[in-house]
């Protein structure tokens, strides 16, 4: 049985078999996703460009993965939490974290610079799959407190190999913690292809070993991703436990600006996946369904341009960073040693006239 699909590659409604009983989301939901994906695409392209220009330390583009990044976020309620990985800047953006908050990490201003509790978004986590356990713990804590909170977290095909992925699946299922794991199978872990990462027929199969639902979804079909994730989220909220969802997609861009994909994959392969663009697919469907017109499309395009230019301005302005702040947050409690070291750096900077 192939991946669940609601909109086929040509933008037409998929057959019942492919839909596997999942319903087409409402026009309103799909328009919202269309808008967020469009904004995300424009943001992503802009940031990738700025990174090439050296404005950011690094950036992991989500280009081509917008369906997996955006649709799950649309399935959350305000009180829910999102635990992103290195690939998920646009997911964070869609969840409401402002560009500065999303990009501080990538520019190298600070490891994270937004209030996780305000947006219910954890700092993006780099150590593969390690954040899955945080999602499980938070979900379990909320459940113990009786709050209707669901934790959504993303991982990649490479991260699926980490021991923490297994421990997270096992803790979540054993505790029946309201957690939804979305595995974005974009075919590569940097340069390592699936065939060297796993022997599984699908990552969704992993769910069997934890007796939790596992769904294999067309990761470039935003409607299918939304339907399946929304189902899993509400199931978790209702006490039904965790789910694992694999979205089959593709990383169109390089892993990061410092990667050289020509060393490990063909441009034909990339072009073939470009043709399966998730945004174009949704747009075709929505226009065909008569719910998306030029006016809305232009309006969203305009928003996207604004976002791009404000992001450009943001990244072109040097951030005002205070090196002395390095000492201020390491501990909640006061530490004499850090007070001394802070003072030492302060003296050094004063002598050097603020420069180093």
């Amino acid at each position, binding site marked *: 049985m192939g991946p669940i699909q609601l909109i086929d590659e040509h933008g037409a409604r998929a057959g019942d078999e492919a839909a596997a009983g999942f319903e087409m989301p409402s026009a309103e939901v799909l328009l919202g996703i269309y808008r967020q994906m469009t904004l995300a695409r424009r943001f992503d392209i802009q940031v990738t460009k700025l990174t090439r220009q050296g404005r950011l330390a690094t950036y992991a583009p989500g280009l081509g993965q917008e369906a997996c990044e955006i649709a799950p976020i649309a399935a959350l309620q305000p009180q829910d939490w999102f635990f992103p990985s290195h690939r998920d800047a646009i997911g964070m953006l869609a969840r409401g974290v402002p560009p500065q908050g999303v990009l501080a990490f990538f520019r190298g201003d600070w490891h994270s610079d937004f209030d996780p509790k305000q947006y219910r978004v954890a700092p993006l986590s780099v150590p593969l799959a390690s954040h899955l356990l945080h999602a499980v713990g938070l979900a379990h804590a909320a459940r113990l407190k009786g709050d209707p909170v669901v934790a959504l977290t993303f991982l990649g095909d490479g991260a699926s190999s980490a021991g923490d992925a297994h421990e997270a699946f*096992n803790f979540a299922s054993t505790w029946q913690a309201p957690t939804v794991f979305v595995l974005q199978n974009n075919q590569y872990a940097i340069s390592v292809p699936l065939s060297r990462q796993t022997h599984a027929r699908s990552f969704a199969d992993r769910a069997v070993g934890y007796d939790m639902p596992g769904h294999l979804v067309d990761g470039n079909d935003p409607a299918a991703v939304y339907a399946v994730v929304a189902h899993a989220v509400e199931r978790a909220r209702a006490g039904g436990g965790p789910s694992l969802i694999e979205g089959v997609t593709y990383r169109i861009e390089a892993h990061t600006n410092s990667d050289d994909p020509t060393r490990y994959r063909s441009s034909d392969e990339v072009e073939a996946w470009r043709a399966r663009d998730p945004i174009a697919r949704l747009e075709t469907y929505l226009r065909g369904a008569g719910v998306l017109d030029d006016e809305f499309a232009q309006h969203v395009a305009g928003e996207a341009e604004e976002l791009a230019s404000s992001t450009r301005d943001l990244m072109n302005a040097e951030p005002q960073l205070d090196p002395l702040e390095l000492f201020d947050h390491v501990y909640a409690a006061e530490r004499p040693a850090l007070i001394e070291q802070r003072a030492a750096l302060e003296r050094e900077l004063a002598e050097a006239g603020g420069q180093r």
Partner: protein
Amino acid sequence: MTMLEENLVPSPTPGTVTERPPQQPAGTKALTMAAALNAALRDALTEDPDVVVFGEDIGALGGVFRVTDGLAAEFGDGRVWDCPAAESGIVGTAIGMAEYGMRPVVEMQFDAFAYPAFQQIASHLAKMGSRTKGRMRLPVVVRIPYAGGIGGVEHHSDSSEAYWTATPGLTVVTPSNPSDAYSMLREAIASDDPVIFLEPKSRYWASESVELPVHTLPMTKARVVRTGEDVTLIAYGSGVKVALEAAEAGAAEDLSVEVVDLRSLSPFDDETVCASVRKTGRAAVIHEAAGFGSFGAEVAARVTEREFFSLEAPILRITGFDIPFPAAKLEQYNLPSAERVLAALDTWVW
């Protein structure tokens, strides 16, 4: 410090050091360190609904050292529970719970079994506070029974403190007696910073007459447990008993020994330690961990940096050898002893 008495309690693992029977003053209660820790957890669970306790075998069994004895029955599944045997999962989920406002206290069954959680501790637990500019603090306590002296098999006697003290963002403390155990664990649980709480296994059964709740010195302060004039012995955990024995034996030879119980390894109480060293002019550090690259090196280095000109001799280290911790029948040769401490002091030119 309150008077220490010790009694003979069967250790959950064989080969435990046998100790003096207790004589308890009226009105107070003879309490082992294990019982003191148990009481601290019970009181914290009672006073703060956000405190939860979980780990391997900490429920019905009460922990392999019985530190959590009775808690699951008393507080129920939502507060105290057994979880899968996976330490990364334990610390990782504790982090998530703390992010939602809870105060998890988790147990690593033995020192070496904290290693699977190393990434969660070093890359997340220690860093989340600074990562988020203090917006997301992680009030998690990781309890780790550590060090040897109980005849444990491989991996059951590691002294892992150097790994944690080398990790900025962690607070690392270790009590050496029941009253500190209670007081420091309460303070660790109340702290908004993650705390690595090291429990010296061989001292679990040492008992003391104490009335609970007891509040001793702040968790981060060192304590002079015996005053002396000639030399300062700097110790912590199981090393404090060794230091006190050495001091006792030294007294017989007219050597006046001051003993400092560090209690907190990170942060380090420079004030108390340096004051003692300024007074005596000589110091030695005692711990079970292998000497090379150990925490004792930090103690020797920083105290020397600060008190070089009041030192009459180099700071010595009486530690385990630079070898993996030995099997049960050979551990005695690796553990610091009062004799070994005194022999080391003899190497100084006096």
